[in-house]
């Protein structure tokens, strides 16, 4: 997998897992791959994946069953969708609007292009 430079790897992996949960790869209530399996899949240090999993469990997207590994939380899809929507309005949209203003693009033009 290709990582970007500007963001911590553990966060990029957490986001990847979010995408995978949203895409239905890890259904709610089911077991995720082990930390080691996931580390081998994305080719990073095991400790980095530990941090990603811990970050996701703090957000209630996954949870740890002692001695059994991590599971996708019930309602995880909704949680992920909510936080991605939030990120869209807080990060993606302002950047988009900024570009529009810089280039003098009107809302009408965008609407037209989207059709």
């Amino acid at each position: 997998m290709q990582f970007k430079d500007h963001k911590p790897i553990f966060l990029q992996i957490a986001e990847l897992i979010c995408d995978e949960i949203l895409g239905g790869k890890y259904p709610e209530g089911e077991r995720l791959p082990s930390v080691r399996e996931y580390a081998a899949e994305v080719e990073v240090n095991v400790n980095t994946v530990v941090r990603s999993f811990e970050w996701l469990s703090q957000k209630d997207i996954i949870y740890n069953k002692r001695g059994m590994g991590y599971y996708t939380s019930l309602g995880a899809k909704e949680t992920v969708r909510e936080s991605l929507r939030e990120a869209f309005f807080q990060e993606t949209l302002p950047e988009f609007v900024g570009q529009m203003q810089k280039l003098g693009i009107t809302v009408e033009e965008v609407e037209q292009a989207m059709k």
Partner: protein
Amino acid sequence: MISIQNVTFGYRKHETVLNDFSLDFGQSGIYGLLGKNGTGKSTLLYLMMGLLRPQKGSVTVDGIDATLRRPEVLQEMFLVPEEYDLPAISLHQYVRAIKPFYPRFSENLLKQCLANFEMGTDINLGVLSMGQKKKVYMSVVLAANTRYLLMDEPTNGLDILSKSQFRKAIIDGMNDEKTIIVSTHQVHDVELLLDHVCIIERNKVLLNEPLIEKDQAINLEELFIKTVEKCTI
């Protein structure tokens, strides 16, 4: 723990590669040993194995002098040199020959690693390409399951896909008790695997610290160039 204390070593009489050099590998984990060409990375690995002897100072593995090459130490160590030849025998014969020296040798791990590299088990070592040879040897080495694994430029000669397979094999072969030391100048090939980075240059350890991400990804190449530049100025 591998401890290098005040070591001086040179291949020629009045030219030292290492001069009063000290470095410890304390905790287990994956270490990246970085440095420009000719800074003594390979020399350090050979000193740790007891294949070279320091002219001054000492190298110890778990407190035992490395130059003694004691069996109980060597059964927990494996060195993968940058270049090597394998004998023209089958993999089975080869494994049978080296297995008795490594009490924790794991046939399962061997199979898993070979599968990672998309190699079978029914192989004659005499007819392999350089890339295949590296894959098979790397699998045997990981299967030997030693607590210390020293690798000198392990990704040299591997194509992009094989490099990715190599990283997976390392992660599969790693556990909490192992110390893997990878010397390399191909920083990108291994940077995401590392727990710890050591940068050496002209007899000095410029940097020796755990790699822990804060709010930015660590760009090891940048870190390397900055660290080396700072020292040259």
